[in-house]
């Protein structure tokens, strides 16, 4: 027979004002199985918790019901207290009489009636609770990091420095990400390459980091501590072991007019190429869509050219190289796939995104985006650091920067702030003024969001010391007249329309997640928001975890992030991963499904509805070892405890611990007339 203790909390006045707490405690005394029912001012206080502990000891309670606030608030507190008194913590439940009752009703009588109902419901549940034990799962202590930008690099280095092996997978031919394209970084104006390159080399040389560049994650199976990852190592057409990175091949390649991705189309590259001089690994890659030999092959013609192969002294060029699939066992995964920039064209990759008709949908040649400006300003860029406009190579004397292009605009499909633009536009005006002494930079802004250490000072400096002209307002229209860009805007501080001429316009376009993020997220079973940014498990308290245990997120694939943010997140994921790897076994909450083997008919409806692949097939054998039945088995390491299997199971042969049919039946019974 159950011996339940009921503890009704006044929460100061929070519950007591609208609920007769003493009355609730008295009413619960009459419920069969309740042997102890009291009320107290603050149950969560030390004396309150002590009351629970004492009652468990003195009355020999088999279950504890705390009628107080939401279980999201204090369930852990009271379960800990229960465990402290020697009772299994899962025999303690909370009745939410604050958020769901006293705070939303004013009629004391009605609120009290409801509070009694709520408490009785939980009493009936707790009567049917059973002791549960924490689950222990083995952990493979190696990590996978997806994405070789600054976030991925930082995460990989921190985990490897912490003593664990790391597999770093990068989609492109080199690690470095967008940070390697930047000229100088705010708010210190230190050279991006100078601070990044050593980290890239460190990754390459680290004994515990295995770098798979020019590779993509093909599939992911398994669960926290026990993932099996298949990586597609795309064919570079270059033998990595033979190549010494001399670069002779790239010099002889006849196809030299390919817009360089690294230079955002402002520079050119060859068909066999190293994306930039500091690339890691320093290996050339054949772009099979642009290489003459492969273009001929695609048309069924014989192989031609082969100049690169002829130039290679090491015989490293391999035109017949194939993609290879490698599998790796890891215990944790860090997603750090970064961002791309929104483009203002008429055709957009998603239905909810819209382009900028008022700016001619991106057809004006001297209107560029922020990353293109970075390449112009970069000493290693296509103009060797000179600010020259793409159309005629002239130095622009009047340059206009437009902030919030796409960002903060629900009409364009991106209502969020891209966070980094205010700062990099301020930086761009400074770089411009440093390079074009007789030039004038003008910025159209909505607000200046310079929250961050040294950020406000930096943007003030751009305006006050370096002479950038800041206009609060939007540009409503932009067109080309001759070689001038006409700008029509509105100054909201002056309250006047502005018409001005510019030689070049730089758009601070919104940050968007990388293309293909949804496919990757689906492989990983992590959720993402309507923009494609990976969802964190909790926006405040679990910012680098995802909803799938063992998978973490860092950098701009979660939301717009600047470099310090991305690095901080990466280090945070590393600390989470290292924490997970601290023990050989992992402990988990026991709210998982469990199969009643005697009743399971083996229809596997549960398997079909399980989003995590937690249901496995289990053979039941007779004494002779013959398989007599095949039934379901729920892997407790994979199960996340949603209970969809149980609602689907026709014979109710799978039960979710903590939310069993009996417990819920009890709750429904308690509400009966």
């Amino acid at each position, binding site marked *: 027979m159950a011996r339940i203790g009921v503890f009704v909390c006044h929460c100061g006045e929070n519950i007591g004002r609208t609920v007769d707490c003493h009355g609730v405690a008295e009413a619960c005394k009459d419920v069969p199985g309740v042997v102890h029912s009291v009320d107290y001012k603050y149950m969560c206080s030390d004396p309150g918790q002590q009351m629970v502990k004492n009652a468990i000891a003195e009355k020999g309670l088999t279950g504890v019901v705390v009628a107080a606030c939401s279980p999201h608030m204090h369930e852990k507190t009271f379960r800990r207290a229960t465990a402290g008194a020697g009772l299994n913590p899962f025999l303690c439940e909370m009745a939410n009489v604050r958020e769901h009752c006293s705070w939303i009703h004013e009629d004391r009588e009605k609120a009290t009636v409801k509070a009694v109902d709520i408490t009785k419901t939980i009493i009936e549940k707790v009567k049917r609770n059973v002791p549960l034990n924490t689950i222990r799962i083995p952990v493979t202590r190696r990590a996978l990091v997806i994405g070789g930008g600054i976030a991925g690099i930082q995460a990989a280095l921190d985990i490897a420095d912490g003593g664990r092996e790391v597999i770093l997978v990068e989609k492109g031919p080199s690690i470095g990400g967008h940070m390697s394209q930047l000229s100088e970084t705010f708010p210190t104006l230190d050279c991006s390459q100078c601070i990044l390159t050593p980290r890239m080399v460190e990754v390459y040389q680290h004994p515990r980091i295995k770098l798979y560049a020019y590779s993509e994650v093909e599939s992911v199976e398994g669960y926290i501590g026990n993932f099996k990852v298949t990586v597609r190592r795309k064919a570079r057409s270059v033998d990595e072991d033979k190549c010494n990175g001399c670069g002779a091949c790239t010099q002889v390649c006849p196809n030299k007019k390919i817009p360089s991705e690294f230079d955002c189309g402002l520079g050119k590259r060859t068909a066999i190429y190293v994306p930039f001089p500091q690339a890691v690994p320093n290996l050339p890659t054949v772009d099979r869509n642009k290489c003459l030999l492969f273009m001929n092959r695609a048309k069924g013609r014989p192989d031609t050219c082969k100049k690169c192969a002829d130039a290679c002294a090491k015989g490293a060029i391999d035109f017949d190289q194939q993609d290879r699939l490698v599998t790796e066992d890891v215990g944790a995964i860090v997603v750090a796939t970064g961002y791309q920039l929104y483009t203002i064209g*008429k055709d957009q990759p998603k239905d909810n995104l819209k382009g900028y*008709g*008022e700016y*001619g*949908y991106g057809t004006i040649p001297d209107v560029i985006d922020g990353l293109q400006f970075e390449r112009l300003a970069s000493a290693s860029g296509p103009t060797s650091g000179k600010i020259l406009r793409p159309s005629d190579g002239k130095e622009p004397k009047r340059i206009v920067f437009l902030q919030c292009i796409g960002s903060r605009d629900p009409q364009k499909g991106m209502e969020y702030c891209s966070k980094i633009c205010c700062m990099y536009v301020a930086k761009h005006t400074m770089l411009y003024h440093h390079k074009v002494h007789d030039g004038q930079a003008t910025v159209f802004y909505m607000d200046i969001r310079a929250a961050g250490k040294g950020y406000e000072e930096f943007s003030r400096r751009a305006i006050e010391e370096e002479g950038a002209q800041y206009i609060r307002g939007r540009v409503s*229209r932009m067109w*080309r*007249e001759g070689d001038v860009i*006409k700008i*029509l805007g509105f100054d909201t501080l002056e309250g006047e329309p502005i018409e001005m001429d510019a030689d070049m316009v730089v758009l601070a376009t919104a940050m968007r997640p990388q293309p293909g993020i949804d496919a990757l997220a689906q492989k990983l079973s992590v959720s993402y928001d309507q923009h494609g940014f990976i969802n964190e498990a909790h926006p405040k308290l679990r910012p680098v975890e995802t909803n799938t245990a063992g998978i973490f997120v860092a950098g701009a694939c979660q939301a717009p992030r600047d470099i310090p943010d991305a690095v901080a997140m990466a280090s945070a994921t590393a600390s989470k991963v290292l924490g997970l790897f601290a023990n050989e076994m992992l402990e988990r909450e026991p709210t998982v499904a469990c199969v009643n083997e005697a009743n399971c008919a083996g229809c596997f409806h549960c398997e079909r509805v399980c989003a995590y692949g937690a249901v496995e097939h289990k053979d039941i054998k007779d004494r002779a070892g013959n398989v007599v039945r095949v039934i379901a088995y729920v892997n407790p390491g994979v199960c996340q405890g949603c209970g969809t299997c149980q609602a689907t199971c026709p014979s109710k042969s799978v039960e979710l611990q903590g939310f069993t049919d009996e417990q819920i039946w009890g709750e429904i019974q308690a509400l009966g007339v």
Partner: protein
Amino acid sequence: MKIGYFPGCSLHGLSREYEESLKAIVAGLDTELVEVDDWSCCGASSAHGSSHLLGVALPARNLAIAEEQGLPEVLAPCAACYARLASARHEISEDPQLAGRVNNVLVRDFKNTVRVRSILEVLKGQIAGIKARATNPLKDLKVACYYGCLLVRPVQVTGGYDDPEDPSSMEDICKAAGAVPVKWNRRLDCCGGGLSMSRTGSVVRLSAAILKDAKAAGADAVVVACPMCHSNLDFRQKAMKHRGAWEGDMPVLFLTQVVGMSMGIDPKTLGMGRHFVSTDSVLARTAGTGSGSGTGTNSAAAVAGEVG
């Protein structure tokens, strides 16, 4: 096809040629215009500038009458009328409280079922018909299609029949009529609107900038679908010259006139002679339409001269 028709004051006064040319072309497009009975002011400028409720109730009255006539949709050729009627429909559907107040004012059971269509929306739906009937294609005629402020905006009110920032319906219609739309920049700029009398200087500055851009783009004529734009761009050319803001003569045509010309309709029927800036140059450039038939326009230009 039958469609409700709300002429508004301009089409019966200032821009009679708009109504004349509209009626001339719809006959050829198998469309019948059913005029809204006892229509009244749409509420443009003065009403919605002075009282929000009046600004909604006036157009609502006309829509209510159309509803009682059993018209599912109403064409308002004037851009301002279109904006008022469509805005009223939008606001009433979004705001039940306002709907109640409007019904009280109207003393009618108005259900707000009538769709409001602009001239662009209606002609866009008839492009195939226009193409088929373009017996007199305006091959050489380069036109600058001018949208102004109200025809395609705001998108919530128009329902998005065209891109509000980079529209193309007027160009498409002109192309169907055989004219050559030029690429230019000030298609959606403000012409000065209703300030023609009170702040003539502003209108001259704004409208001249539009005409100059059209001229620079090589246009033979500017095409409009709004009486107010027409008046500012056509009638005010003399004042522009007077103030040194503009030189030359740029014919300003109604879209319906362009379509009518392509159908080979007599220029007089299309009201080509009612403009202040002579349309002779346009008529002369269109193949098959003798420049002689444009004689009537000279007198109008002369009248314009007197007025200016």
